[in-house]
């Protein structure tokens, strides 16, 4: 992970959990404001920032249900490697996706100290495993221009994840890529187990 000024400060997880809970509960965040042309708009949606292989990413807080320490995962047969299995999140069975493996950044498998974020869209819930969760951040300015400059449609291989990026926020010497949760959760690969 590259140095990233003050933002890089490590927030203890418990504190973060508390903060997330507070903000999820208080209805503090406005409804998903479209990131494009959000220049100087005060109501940009808060995001949960996390790190995936040294890359700073974020998901809108409104699409996250819960974050936590790596849960106990039960492996299931006949699933692709990035589908780590299912976990019992307070009585509910939730699938856990190794996002790094899904994006083709690394072979599947858990490492110590990884965290999960439970994402949801209208149809499903799934947990993604990320390397580190940094905190909640409300970007002031989301730059769609940077996105199209930075990532191209044809980005392949290790950069294939860029297809799921909806906006980019410049933060001094680095950028934060905001993932489009819905696009991620509804892509065909993710949904190969729906039918039948």
């Amino acid at each position, binding site marked *: 992970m590259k140095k990233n000024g003050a933002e890089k400060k490590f927030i203890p997880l418990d504190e973060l959990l508390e903060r997330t809970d507070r903000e999820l509960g208080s209805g503090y965040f406005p409804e998903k404001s479209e990131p494009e042309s959000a220049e100087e708009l005060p109501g940009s949606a808060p995001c949960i920032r996390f790190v995936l292989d040294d890359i700073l990413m974020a998901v809108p807080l409104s699409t996250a249900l819960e974050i936590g320490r790596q849960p106990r995962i039960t492996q*299931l*047969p006949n699933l692709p*490697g990035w589908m780590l299995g299912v976990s019992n999140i307070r009585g509910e*069975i939730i699938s856990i996706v190794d996002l790094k493996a899904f994006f083709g950044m690394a072979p599947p498998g858990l490492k110590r100290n990884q965290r999960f974020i439970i994402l949801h869209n209208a149809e499903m819930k799934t947990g993604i495993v990320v390397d580190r969760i940094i905190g909640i951040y409300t970007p002031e300015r989301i730059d769609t221009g940077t996105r199209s400059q930075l990532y191209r449609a044809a980005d392949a291989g290790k950069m294939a994840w860029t297809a799921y990026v909806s906006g980019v926020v410049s933060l001094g010497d680095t950028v934060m890529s905001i993932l489009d949760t819905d696009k991620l959760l509804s892509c065909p690969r993710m949904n190969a*187990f729906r*039918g039948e």
Partner: protein
Amino acid sequence: MSGPADEIIKGYMEEVRTHIPSLTDGIEKLRKNPDQKNVLTELHRLVHTIKGASLMVGIPGLSRIAQQMEDLLGDILSAKLKLTEPVFRVLQFVTGHFQTYCDDLAEKGVPAREMLHKTLLACRRLRGLPKEEDESAAASLLQSVPETEGLSGEEETGAEEDEEIAALAELARMEAGGEEAEPSGSSAASAEQQTVEPAPAAMPEIMPELLESFYEESKEHLEELDSSLNSLESRIAAPGPMSPAVKEIIRKIRRAVHTLKGAAAVIGLSNISAWGHIMEDFLDWLYEGTQDMGPETVSVLMESADLLARIVALPQDPQRSKVLSLQTRYKEIMQISGKGAVPKEDAAAPAAEPAEVGESLESDDRGADIFSRQTQTLRVGTEKVDELVNLIGELMIAAGAFDQQMSIFAEAIHELERSRERVREIARNMELEYEVRALGGLRSRSVLSPGAGAAGTDASKFEDFDSLELDQYSELSLIIRTLNESAIDVSAIFSRLSNLHSDFDGHLNRQRVLLSEVQDKMMRIRMIPMSTLGNKLRRTVREVAKVLKKKIRLVITGEEIELDRLIWEKITDPLMHLLRNAADHGIEMPDVRKEKGKPPMAVLRLEASREGNQVVIRISDDGAGLDYRSIRKKARRAGLIDESSTVTEEELAALIFRPGFSTRDTISEVSGRGVGMDVVRENIQSLKGNVRVQSWKDKGTRFTIRIPLTLAAIRALLFTVEGRTYAIALNEIREIIRADAQNMIKIPKRAIRVGNELLPITCLKEYLFPGASEKEPCPAPIVLVTECGGKAEALEIDTLLGQQEIVIKSTGTHLHHVRGISGVTIVGDGTVVPILNIPELLGMEAEPGMMSAGFAEPVSAAPGGEAPLTVMIVDDSISIRQVVSRLMEDQGWKVQTAKDGIEALEKLGESRPDIIILDIEMPRMNGYEFLNAMSAEPEYRGIPVVMLTSRATAKHQDKAVGLGAKGFMVKPYNDNEFIDLVLKLAG
């Protein structure tokens, strides 16, 4: 004419005779003084009574004549007509007719039609009705009256019928007109009238609670009715005398109809009670008036019941035409049995029954019935029951956790026992040691003994005693004594604890028994047997058979099979659809069947049974079987199969499940839209079941539906493989065997002897962790022998954990269906345990002609990066190329196509795809040749090849695999499976 009816008519004529003097008197009085309104009213009432009662006892001629007079008097009453001499003459004339009836009806008979005609004309003239309409009015009226009345014999029979029709026509007319509602009329007339009186356009205000409970009740009665009728149907094959059992069934039917009618009348649903009343009359006759019964009667009864159900469903619509036609059929049946007069008695008897039918003879009986039923049922929302079931599931889990703690408790007690022994041992040893020493050198010891100060002074007083003569206590001996006492205390605690433990254990066991009983009962609440569905299905078949004019008998077996209510709800439509289809497409017309040498009555079977943890429903007919020729034709036209390729019958059969596929050119009321089978499959798949079809030419078609039982809780065996816990439903496990040298063979393949069978040992590890490093096989593995769908499997596992009650949960909102597991469960410590679905896991489930024959290719590790795959599709059919290309492109992959092997080889030279999808039969160079050519080129060897073909046989597969193909996909394929396979192989 039979005795009792005769008696009634005779009695009735006597009654009429007593009216005649009053009539004549009245006419005379009026002649003298026309202004006596009360006399006129009295006359009107008398005539009205005669009209109504005559109809009731079955003298329509008299009734019609009386009606003419009544109309006339009505006009006078409403001052439309003046009382003039001609009027008096006509009145006297008509009264004369009454006299004729009284005198001649019994012996000579009465020229009813002629008399009526004259009366009619006379009255019409007086009332100033247009002459031109005379004929039409007369015609319809005269039709309803026999030429003569009162004669016995055949003529009478005919008259009877006519008269009944007339009565009904008349009633219908009265309704239509709706102007006649005289409360002053004789009870008989008004009762009859009310019977068919339509409900007012706006339904009377009925309290919704009443309505609701009525519907709840009516459902029960209709079901009872249906099931009684069905058992009646199965008993009555040919006309013949009734057995006591049949009588009993009829009694049941009558009771159900009666109760329903009564309930409907009480809350004011007059259409229901009206029809119920008519039906009940017929049932009365069946029960009391006749000894014989035939299939015709049963079918009439069934139609009646259907009509009743329809009216209950739509009480605003009295279904008049249907009521009339059925009523006519009742009469026919009653006459056929040669006792035409009997119903008259019945017609007369209920005449005494006033409008408030609820208060009828059996009202007490019925009242009690309703009351008891109300206390028996309680309506509870399904979600509440589900909550309870879930809670009980959780309770079971909690009890399971308690179990674990209990065994820890028991261990602790054991530990305690051991320490108690140790303490006792130490205490004894010390005591012995001490005593020996004390004996050996008491003096020196007592000095040496620690803390001898106090003891020493005490001891010195007893120096003259030998140590054997007086026990002396040093501090050590006191400690030893305390130790001994503690040992005893510990021992007491131990026994108390172990008593407690066994008490706990006893209580816990009781709890468990109760809990499982409660659970069992809860499950039962949601479970309903198929018989509740049976009636609906029977009715469907009956109606369809009628529409199609085919003769079909539906035989349902396994009605006791219970499934969750929700499952039945979801499966009802598919079942009905399959039955309708069988009736429409499968079963031939009766004459065709005769030609084929089959009985004209087709048999449609619906069999439900339990196999392992599945419920299997088979629907089979003895019809013509699938018409493969027209399926093939349609499939070709739709581009589903190639002109050239030969497709097996099984593959063709699978096509009928495709959306929009129908071999019918016309859409009928019954079938032909091509939507149904697709919906059938979808519905069944949503229950995680599957459906397959088998067909034999001219022997019939059979659909087999398999639905896994998803009880909320099952007993399961928990075991580990590679240190992970898995579960298998206990009812799938036949045996657990420890394999050893005696029952196991190792070469050439590990197999185990189970009874007389020799089963190859399947290592679960290979299926659960494909690609895991091969280890030395265990010399004496634990083997689970499972049996599912009649096929036994021997599975090697690592360790057994024991059996447990588990609650099946789904795999969440993301993973709807994971191949090889039927669900997961959460055990006491919160771990998620997969429940294995053995047939699916081992890849046995792939039924030919159903889905793709999935290749048991182990799941490789994760697919590589997101880099779009390049797929080469080699197929000679352009439509296949297009369809597959679109599917692949939808995944964001790049697609190359080639129309045969040679072109494919050329394109391979230009760029290297990640995967090749290959057809077998192609011009110039077929799939096998292409595989051969590919393997000759070392640089192409790494490219995985998936065979996409309609050849599903093992021979074709083996050949392809032998040549290096990595996967096999059978057309028609399932998109998701195909994509999965491609991902698996290319990743």
